């Protein structure tokens, strides 16, 4: 019965580590899928996959990055994910001419809704990196582990994503003023 006891212990430990991340993973899943029902499916599948693969998780390594990575990979192979990624241009949106914050943004007070809409409009690869950095407050190294990309790529995606975000916000604010 040792194997059975081990499964029970693994499952209890998994629950202890994974359930505190539940609300955060769900929020992240909603941002990826843009649909609550699809996000529930995604989170549920993530937890079942992670529980199944938990014996392969190396204790002492980053559990949070491991969970986000499973969720994100599950998303990318789902119908919604495949569709979202196929809509993304390979090179992302056109680069704004300047890296600087547009003047119109400096003085504007941006409300939640404007920012939420701009985030939703961003291609998935930029949205996810911005959310992991700004919302989840992951370090660049942790984001690299989660997305399985080198730190240099994390930095360049963040930079391009934020430029695109600033451009989108500026468009919205200027549009509202007209």
């Amino acid at each position, binding site marked *: 019965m040792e*194997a059975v006891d081990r*499964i*029970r212990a693994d*499952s209890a430990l998994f*629950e202890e580590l994974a359930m505190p991340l539940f609300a955060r993973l769900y929020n992240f899943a909603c941002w990826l899928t843009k649909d609550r029902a*699809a996000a529930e499916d995604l989170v549920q599948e993530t937890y079942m996959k992670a529980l199944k693969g938990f014996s392969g998780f190396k204790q002492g390594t980053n559990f949070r990055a491991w969970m986000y990575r499973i969720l994100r990979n599950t998303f990318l192979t789902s119908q919604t994910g495949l569709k979202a990624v196929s809509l993304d241009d390979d090179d992302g949106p056109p680069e704004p001419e300047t890296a600087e914050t547009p003047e119109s943004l400096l003085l504007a007070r941006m409300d939640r809704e404007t920012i939420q809409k701009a985030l939703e409009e961003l291609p998935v690869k930029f949205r996810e990196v911005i959310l992991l950095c700004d919302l989840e407050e992951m370090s660049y190294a942790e984001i690299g582990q989660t997305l399985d990309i080198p730190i240099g790529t994390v930095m360049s995606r963040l930079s391009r994503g934020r430029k695109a975000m600033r451009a989108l916000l500026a468009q919205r604010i200027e549009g509202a003023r007209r």
Partner: protein
Amino acid sequence: MSCENWSGKLDAYVDGQSPDTELESHLRECPKCAREVLSRWQMKRATQAAAERYAPSSEFRLRVQSQIAASRATPRKQLWGIPRLTWAAAGLVAVVLLFVLGIGWNRHAAHEQALAELLDLHVAALASANPVDVISTDRHTVKPWFQGKLPFTFNLPDLQNTPYTLLGGRMMYFEHNPGAQLLYQTRNHKLSVFVFQDRAGAGDFGLGISSGSQMAFHVESWSEGGLRFAIVSDAGAADVHALGELLRAAGRS
């Protein structure tokens, strides 16, 4: 160093990734860069606040939590991963190995794992809020939905005057290959029909029609025209077999 040289480092600074004393002294002297840093920092905070948007329902949390707890109540090797071999299990494996002469066991294990994977897919679909991606009782709607999504096609039976109803279908992956999962209903039982390419060795289902039960689910599988079909359901073996017959007849037509 000019402002252009610093601009690439502003994000890392705002993200707290690299405390940079040189950059800090530049910021004290350069209002343009200082303003840029402040603006990026404000944007980061505003994004953080705005992105905190969705909260899971307590029912959903309970559902997932109880699924995790269920793995403790009835530890199921096939559903929750193969446990590490203990001495007792190793002893058992040795006896079985002697009994079925190595190769037979490997096939058996591959087959068990394949069945467990299909069972998982069936259970996961039923637990999902959206069990199917194409919702229709019409086979002429469901079948074309898979066009362009799968590298093969298949026939679905006419269910008129039968106790079965087609509920819809979804894409699934079995052993890393795409396939179709069709959902049927008879009385209060749901039946999943899986269709995927019958690759050599995949699942080790063997030849002819094979049927059996696992965790009280009935499974029937057969191969036809290079495709592997498998039905998984909690309905009785006779119900599963009868649907199998309908599908086999449709395949031959």
